[in-house]
């Protein structure tokens, strides 16, 4: 009896499937998707186009935006706050406005008013990597406080039990959110670990030569330092040079943070220049942007409606957990677009 019922059910199901086939071909998705997205303009304004993160973002964004029939453009302020502001102003007032503006802000305040104006003009604004005093349609990037915590934990582990517990910081500057929050995160962890303390905290102003000079002084003043945390891999080559010059590679564990590019980070972990690097998963971060672009353009919501934080998962990578795919390769990404 049971077998007969099963058989009958199966027969009925297959009959239903057969008759349903022609109707299923009409999926409304692709139509909605292409109506909302094709021809839409996405503009990326990083602090500069010349460094690994920006080039990585641009490569993936270009690939995706072009694929959905949109137009992808970048502007290169080349580290100039004014040039960036000008690029954004132009975008807002231009005849063909971008639909989504992806901006890496140089500090907390410079672009806040401009970006509000962009939202009023009907442009979605996504802030990337650097937070600012402004409610974007989404913030995509690192939780810099958490990043600082991870750095401090890596430094503590690098120092190890029974070490001097002296940690030196090479901060970036005193205006950039990434530097301020990183510092807060580091102090957060160190206050819970009283055996470790910060003995000096000079600024590099993100310049490698300055980083080298201040680290040299720091190591001379505090010869027992067991770890140095430099706030960016863009200038940590200076701190590394100071440690190398002092012949203290075995004693001082250098921690920094970066975009996880092969030559900038993994190669340097591999050859022992950096002890640990807190890296951003660039591909994940960029695909988060892509998802948001696709979502916002179909949402029908006005710019400025909501302001979620989409943090990218961060990891402190050391030589022990270095894998072939720990880093991404800029050359390979650029090859994707035939550049």
């Amino acid at each position: 009896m049971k077998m007969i019922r099963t058989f009958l059910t199966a027969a009925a199901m297959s009959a239903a499937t057969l008759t349903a086939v022609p109707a299923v071909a009409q999926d409304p998705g692709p139509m909605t998707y292409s109506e909302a997205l094709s021809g839409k303009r996405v503009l990326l304004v990083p602090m500069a186009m010349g460094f690994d993160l920006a080039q990585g973002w641009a490569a993936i964004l270009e690939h995706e935006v072009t694929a959905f029939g949109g137009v992808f453009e970048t502007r290169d302020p080349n580290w100039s706050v004014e040039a960036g502001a000008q690029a954004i102003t132009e975008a807002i007032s231009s005849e063909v406005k971008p639909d989504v503006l992806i901006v890496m802000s140089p500090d907390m305040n410079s672009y806040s008013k401009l970006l509000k104006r962009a939202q009023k003009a009907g442009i979605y604004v996504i802030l990337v990597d650097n937070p600012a005093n402004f409610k974007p349609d989404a913030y995509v990037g690192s939780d810099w406080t958490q990043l600082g915590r991870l750095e401090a934990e890596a430094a503590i582990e690098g120092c190890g039990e029974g070490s001097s517990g002296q940690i030196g910081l090479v901060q970036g500057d005193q205006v950039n959110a990434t530097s301020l929050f990183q510092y807060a995160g580091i102090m957060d962890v160190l206050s819970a670990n009283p055996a470790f303390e910060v003995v000096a905290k000079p600024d590099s102003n993100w310049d490698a030569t300055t980083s080298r000079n201040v680290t040299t002084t720091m190591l001379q003043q505090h010869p027992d330092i067991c770890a140095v945390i430099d706030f960016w891999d863009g200038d940590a080559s200076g701190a590394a040079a100071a440690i190398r010059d002092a012949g203290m590679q075995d004693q001082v564990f250098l921690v920094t943070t970066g975009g996880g590019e092969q030559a900038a980070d993994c190669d340097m972990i591999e050859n022992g220049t950096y002890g640990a690097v807190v890296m951003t998963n660039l591909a994940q971060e960029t695909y988060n942007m892509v998802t948001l672009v696709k979502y916002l353009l179909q949402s029908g919501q006005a710019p400025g409606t909501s302001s979620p934080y989409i943090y990218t998962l961060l990891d402190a990578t050391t030589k022990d957990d270095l894998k072939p795919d720990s880093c991404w390769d800029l050359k390979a990404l650029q090859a994707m677009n035939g550049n």
Partner: protein
Amino acid sequence: MESNWLSRLKDLNQERIVLVVAVLIFATASVALPGFFSAPNLISIVRSISVLGILALGMSVVVIGRGIDLSMVAIMAMSVAWYLQLLGDGMADHTALLLVFAGVLAIGLLNGFLVAYADVPAIFVTLASGSFVFGYVRSQLISSDAVPVPEGHWIAMLGGLRFASIPIEVFLFAILSGAMFLFLRYTKWGRYVYYAGDNPIAARNVGMPVRPMLVLRYVVSALTAFTAGLLTAASLHSINTRVVNSTLLYDIVLVTVIGGIGLSGGKGGVRNVLVGAALIGIMLNAMTIVDIPLLYQNLIKSTILLLAIIMDGLLNPRDEQTAQQGDI
């Protein structure tokens, strides 16, 4: 007695004021800051200003001849970045070096030619050529801001080179200072630099080759910039072209003029550069030891510099005899 004291005070020109300030800071720091007056720290002070000092030497030759070279930092960073990129792309070392050397030479010649023969003001020529060098190299010749030194290359070895635990760039700074001193003081063309800077028209009227000499000075400053770039890469094992946007250029001008080389040309020498560099080096080092945040460091640095300039203005007022046409 009093007049004697007063005349002594009148002797204090800008160079001596800066020297006195530098010595005062040095003495205070030696007493107050533990670890300041130690051999390693003194070496690191000299080292920290070596590259800056070398750049300032190149700048001073141009400034004494009544010019200015604002393209130095661009030449320094971009030439070496291009060189490292060529090496990374697998070009043979000597070919790459020769190519970049030719490029540097060409920019120096171009600067000099435009100033000397096309009579364009130096400030515009070098501002434009600096932007051109940066823009062209950055967009056409290299692929990212930072270019690493290939593993095991001689530049990386150079950075690790020490004699009596003193880094190589300190010796190079000393040698170049000596060479520059001899050139300016004892060679005919060196003396001509002063005459041409003091009064170009008179210098020309008495038959000095004013224009070829002008070209030479910009070539010298371009080559010094290239040397400074190589030393930077040697120490950091990479060059970051972002330095072009930093305040380095102003620091070079600062070190050059703070020691007493007038922007109006015709006066000063290597000693002034050394005094200016010493002040900056000592000040920055002391402030780093005290752990003063960068914002305050800039404030303190600029205040001391302003004070030195104001004192010079009070003690050596400009009048019709000391002022020159073309003062900036």
